[in-house]
């Protein structure tokens, strides 16, 4: 059948544009939030995932990288390396340290690296070196951009100045960023000595789970996690803060989008009430009239979703300059899901108007 609904939609260009704009705003809001969440998750997990560590060991009570709940003496390295299946153990010290910038203070998730660190150094380096020397620091790209810092510049952490040795990528957690010092430097900032928050273990192939069990049996002072579990713990930490807000905002966005579609489609149906009666009088079933209404809202939703994604694409290009901390990660499946979500939203929004169109009596075609 001729795509009558699409014709109606395109004929009333202002209404079509307004409906599409409502859908675009809903899609933009939702995909933007999902993109920020995915960006923060990637920033948080990439460091753990790509470290090459098979097992993470922390003080008992610790369950992810952001919430280390105590310290372990670095001498434990020898004990850990004696455990069956363990190949090497690398201690790191982690702490949230404020950096002083010209426009105020910002907190960095600072990792103190041991000399010759192989597992714990940042993996993606945009400029300079991955491994800092004493008195040096490796900063995240977003933090450096926000502060206007480059390799060779100096930055103040807890009233001590460090020379920037490198700029890293995929180390941005949105609310904070990773920074990497030598462990000795971080110990001196914290006023501790010979301490670690985590040990990163390399184990023999396929021994991760067994090593975790052995470590837990040998000491009740430590918590050990295989890589998958530790990643999941960190993902949950990000999600617990982010997902409720994301879900609420997405729901609000989709509800507003559906309301816009419903309102616009409703007025379109009222204006064309005579046509729906005519279609009935010409032999059109209720289903045919339902489809005509659905076509109108789906056309607007499709246009709106595409417009929303296009705006997001532009935003993704502009964002690093204006808000470098906000890293958008929009995978193709997220974009596809957004389009499908917009179509579903439009279909839901069009249900009441479609119900009205199908209930118009064909007899009305005879009324003047």
């Amino acid at each position, binding site marked *: 059948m001729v795509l009558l609904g699409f014709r*109606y939609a395109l004929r009333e260009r202002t209404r079509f544009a307004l409906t599409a704009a409502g859908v675009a705003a809903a899609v933009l809001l939702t995909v933007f939030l999902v993109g920020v969440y995915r960006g923060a998750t990637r920033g948080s997990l990439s460091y753990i995932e790509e470290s090459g560590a098979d097992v993470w060991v922390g003080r008992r009570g610790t369950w992810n990288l952001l919430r280390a709940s105590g310290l372990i003496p670095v001498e434990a390295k020898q004990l850990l390396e004696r455990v069956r299946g363990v190949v090497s153990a690398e201690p790191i010290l982690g702490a949230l340290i404020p950096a002083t910038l010209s426009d105020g203070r910002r907190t960095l998730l600072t990792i103190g690296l041991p000399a010759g660190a192989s597992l714990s150094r940042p993996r993606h380096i945009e400029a300079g070196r991955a491994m800092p020397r004493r008195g040096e620091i490796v900063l995240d790209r977003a933090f450096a951009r926000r502060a206007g810092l480059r390799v060779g510049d100096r930055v103040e952490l807890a009233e001590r100045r460090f020379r920037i040795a490198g700029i890293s990528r995929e180390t941005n957690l949105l609310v904070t960023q990773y920074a990497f010092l030598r462990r000795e430097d971080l110990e001196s900032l914290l006023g501790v000595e010979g301490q670690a928050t985590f040990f990163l273990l390399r184990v023999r192939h396929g021994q991760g789970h067994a090593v975790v069990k052995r470590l837990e049996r040998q000491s009740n002072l430590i918590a050990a996690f295989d890589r998958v579990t530790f990643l999941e713990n960190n993902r949950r930490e990000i999600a617990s803060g982010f997902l409720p807000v994301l879900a609420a905002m997405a729901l609000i966005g989709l509800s507003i989008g559906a309301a816009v579609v419903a309102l616009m489609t409703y007025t379109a149906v009222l204006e064309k009430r005579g046509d729906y009666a005519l*279609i009935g009088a010409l032999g059109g079933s209720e289903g045919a009239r339902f489809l005509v209404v659905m076509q109108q809202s789906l056309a607007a939703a499709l246009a709106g979703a595409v417009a929303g994604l296009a705006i997001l694409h532009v935003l993704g290009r502009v964002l690093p300059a204006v808000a470098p901390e906000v890293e958008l990660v929009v995978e193709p499946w997220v974009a596809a899901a957004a389009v499908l979500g917009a179509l579903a939203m439009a279909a839901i929004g069009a249900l009441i108007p479609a119900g009205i169109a199908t209930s118009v009596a064909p*007899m009305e075609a005879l009324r003047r």
Partner: protein
Amino acid sequence: MSACTLRFEGVGKVYPGAVSCRALHDVSLEVECGTFNVIQGPSGSGKTTLLAIAGGLERPSTGRVWLSEREITSLPARQLLELRRAELAFVFQDFKLIDVLTAEENVSLPLELRGVKAGSARERSRAMLDHLGLGGRISRRPRELSGGEKQRVAIARALVTEPRLILADEPTANLDWETGSEVVELLRAATRERGATAVVVSHDSRLALRADYQIGIVDGALHRNGSNGQAGDGPGGIKT
């Protein structure tokens, strides 16, 4: 009774409301195949209600209606729709063309609503428009057509489904005298060529003059007008 006969038997219609309105009262009539029939009456006399009941768009409050030997009064909605698709077509006073569609698309719409493939529907609608002298107007939208052309497109839309009964509601009311006469002739020719039956309600005296049979309706009740050369209750045509 022939296969395309329309028959009313004691049909009444009351619209309920704070003050109920009796639109038709005890109407009995029989319309036979291949005839051009005109029902005349003043505004509010029940002409349109009669047409709507004949076309299965309204159900009567009392009485029974037969269309092509099927009693349609109590048919379920789905079967009524199928019957309308198979047997009926409407022509409306104000053309009722869909303004976002071209003339060709307007004519092919009822075919496509009946499940005819788009290509075949377009071909048939082009042939019908050509037959009615609108071959050069197939891509025009209603706003680009004159009143007479619009009504011819509406007649093409009615004829393209090859209905056995054409129900027309004041088809000349919005047209000037000359154009109205052309439309009347077109409807007459269509019934003659295709063996279809036409029931036309109208104020227009030109229609009554060209009708095979005519009948008057006042205050929802029929009264005999006779016919053009035949008795109103004679064989064929409208019998009351």
